[in-house]
């Protein structure tokens, strides 16, 4: 009965590879997010989707491509992985995340990505 689930939990791969992280939420929320947390614990928003539509797209290299097949899923594909991509990636969801919504965000357990 996990609310926001991400897979895989750990991802260790070589520089230059392509990898995907999947996220699913069963809270019935209409908005989903991807955050990157670096080694200093700084949390930065990368993307947000509201009802499958991209609403937030921060200054992220275009090697990162999110995809939302439906409002319960938001996947993240990363091409040509670089050393600087090593971080923890968190998926989150909320209800009514666009506009003036004040709803809290629910986070997944995170995917720990390590680039060798």
């Amino acid at each position, binding site marked *: 009965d996990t609310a926001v689930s991400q897979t895989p939990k750990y991802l260790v791969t070589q520089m230059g590879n392509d990898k995907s992280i999947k996220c699913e939420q069963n809270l019935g929320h209409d908005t989903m997010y991807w955050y990157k947390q670096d080694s200093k614990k700084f949390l930065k928003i990368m993307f947000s989707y*509201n009802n499958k539509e991209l*609403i937030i797209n921060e200054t992220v290299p275009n090697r990162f491509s999110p995809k939302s097949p439906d409002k319960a899923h938001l996947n993240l594909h990363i091409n040509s992985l670089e050393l600087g991509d090593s971080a923890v990636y968190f998926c989150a969801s909320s209800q009514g995340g666009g506009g003036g919504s*004040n709803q809290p965000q629910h986070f*997944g357990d995170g995917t720990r990505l390590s680039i060798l």
Partner: protein
Amino acid sequence: GQQVMQIPQYQHVQEGEDFTTYCNSSTTLSNIQWYKQRPGGHPVFLIQLVKSGEVKKQKRLTFQFGEAKKNSSLHITATQTTDVGTYFCAGKTGNTGKLIFGQGTTLQVKP
């Protein structure tokens, strides 16, 4: 761009001592949220403040939102070892729908 600054970055306290973390925004916020992340865990929502000068309490935790809606604080009275973790403030401005997180304050509590 908009920034949310949080201090201190780290705080070590003896169990039973009080703890406070401060959050300042470069712009007026529509609301501010607080999250707690345990070591190895994920951020968990604690509370949201919306009104100017608002004060909310959760047991030993007291949250304040400044009159100008540009700053906020979280105060923990008589810390316990279960309070260990990183506390984040996160502010939202206007209608962007985007939460800007502070850098977090990592609290260590010595038993």
